[in-house]
Every structure is written in structure tokens, then in C-alpha cells.
């Protein structure tokens, strides 16, 4: 069963929110969506870090 956290603003200027949805004993998983709730994408740690570091754009995921 994944531990689902609340959505939290990731980038106000890009209009993105994120939350952690990691299942017990599994590698981290994250969900990112447009502010307002559309286009949810599941990410692993590397993708999530890439998004925050600017190596990946939300549209590329």
C-alpha cells in the first residue's frame, strides 16, 4: 500500500504540484501534475530530481 502524501506546490511559476506516493519497501515514487489537477505523471527519483534540477521538462516526462 502506497503512502500517499498531500499535493504540494512544486513550482508556482510553472504551475506544478507534486506528492510522494511510495509503497512500503519500494523505491520512491512521485506524482507531478499541473496546478488544478490535470495531467498527473508518475516519476521515479531520477526523473523527479531531473525535473527539479531543470534537466527534464514536465512535457518531456
Amino acid at each position: 500500500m502506497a503512502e500517499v502524501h498531500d499535493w504540494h506546490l512544486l513550482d508556482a511559476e510553472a504551475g506544478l504540484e507534486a506528492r510522494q506516493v511510495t509503497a512500503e519497501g519500494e523505491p520512491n515514487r512521485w506524482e507531478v501534475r499541473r496546478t488544478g489537477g490535470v495531467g498527473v505523471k508518475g516519476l521515479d527519483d531520477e526523473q523527479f530530481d531531473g525535473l527539479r534540477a531543470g534537466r527534464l521538462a514536465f512535457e518531456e516526462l
Partner: protein
Amino acid sequence: MLDLIESPYARTTDATYSVYYHLKAHVASARYGGGYVRKPGFHSSVEDNLEDWPDNYSIREAINRREPRDVGRALDITLSDADMRTLTRRLVWAVETDDPRLEGLREFFGTLDGRTVYGRSRRGPDTDWYSSTADSSHLWHIHLSFFTPFAGNWAALAGLVSILIGESLTDYLNGGTMERNIAEHGDSGTWVKFVQRYLQDFGATLERDGQWGDQTTAAAKWVFVHRFGGDPADYDGRSMTDWMLREFIRRDQDARTAAAIKAAVAKLPTAAPTQAQVDAAVATFLKANPIKLPTGVSVNLGNVTGTLFYGG
């Protein structure tokens, strides 16, 4: 001081937004993760909390019910994994060194290892820090809460930017373009306490209570005359400029360096080594690092003059 930038976000003060704006110029991964947000705690205003969450910790202490009461008092900055660790470490170091640039900071959350949320909080600008923690979103964004009166105080929050971008306190003090008072008679708070620590270190007798009264004035004047060799007529002891504070820090660092050298010298042997000790050391070295002499190689020395010794 860095420029104050107009906030594009309602109820997020210019000072709070400016922290993000100037950090972004130095840390490429920094994203604006939110200032004012209507939810319980420091992200919302004093009025919001009083109205909807009157028991919330963000309005418990008297200082956090003061003005401005209609703005958010926190800032979230999203960062890459590497920058999360770096910036959290800088905040931790500032706490551990009692850095006065933390003056307006109520609490922060981040991570030192990317796996565990790390946080420190305090109930007043001059009270001790204690450990605290928060949810896992603080693995990817740093949260900063400000004591309410500091939410719009750019002079104080600019010091926080200085810490986050990795400036030393001396660099920060050098950043001013004109001499300014760091603290003066009648002031209280973090900077006064910081100055008092140096006055104590330089031998003045005073209580480190964070209040600049007559005792601190007398101590500052005593240090100026007896430690700096100043003329009593030149300084009344009622204020501390950034120049003087830099001089305190420089002399303190010089004294610490001198003490470290003195301690190292004291550990050296007092007498020169004997020939037997040198021979033993050389023998030990040669045993560990044997010299391989070439065989079957002729060496043409040309014409050599001088005296040949046989060393035995």
C-alpha cells in the same frame, strides 16, 4: 544590501519574495514553491489562523501575533537533491555557529542526506534551537518560517539570503557600501547578543542577555580602549558599526590561529634529535622504501676532481 523586489504574489511580502528572487540568481535549481498559502501555520497570516485555526502553533508566541497580521510568514523553495543538501547544511552551520543573520528565522526544514527530513525550530529570536521534523515533501523543498514582525523586514531577510548562497559573515558585512550600525544602545536581539559574545571574548565583563544597555555600552568602550588601543574620547560605546564588528571577527580569528600555532609548537620536541635518532629514522625509511641500484650499467662521469670519502 540586495535590492528589494516587488512580490508578484498577493499577501506574500516583498521581503519574503526577495529571498527567493535573489537565491534563484545563485542557485539554478531554485523554484518558487509558495509564500502565502491559506492553510494552518506560517504560510497563512496571523488573521487567517486566529479566524480558522486559533490553536495553531504559528500564533502561539506573542511575537507571532504582532504586525503584519495579514501576510504569509513562510517561504518554500523547491531544489534539486544536491542543492537541498547544500542549502540545508548551510542553515545548520549557521545555527551551530549562532550566526546573527538568522535573526528573523523561526524554523526551517530540509534534508542533509536526501532520505530524512531535518528541521530546527525556536520560539523566539533569542531562544535556543530545538530539533523538529515535518512531512517528506521537505526532501525536495526547503521551508523557511519567519517570526511575524520579520516577514516584511528585508534588512533581516537579506541576511538569510547571504547564508543560503554560502557567504561568510565577514563577506556579508563587507558587502555594505557605507558604514552602518549593527546594533546600538536600546536595541535588543540576536545582533546584540552576537556583539556581546565578542565583548566577552575580548575580556569585558558583562552579561550576554541580548539587551544593549549601560553595561554593554561600558563593555564596548572598555574593549575599544583596552584591546584596540583607542582614545576614550573617540568612542562613546553606544553603538557597534559593521567596521568594528569586522575588526572583532578578524582579531578573534587571528587570536584563534595564534593559539592553534602555539599549541602545535608546544607539542614539538624541545631538544634537537641525536645522531642515533636520525640514523634510526633513516634506516626505518630505507627499510620501508628500499633503493634499487642498477646493475650492469656503466656511468661515464667525465673528468672529476675533488676528494673521495668512504662512508663505511
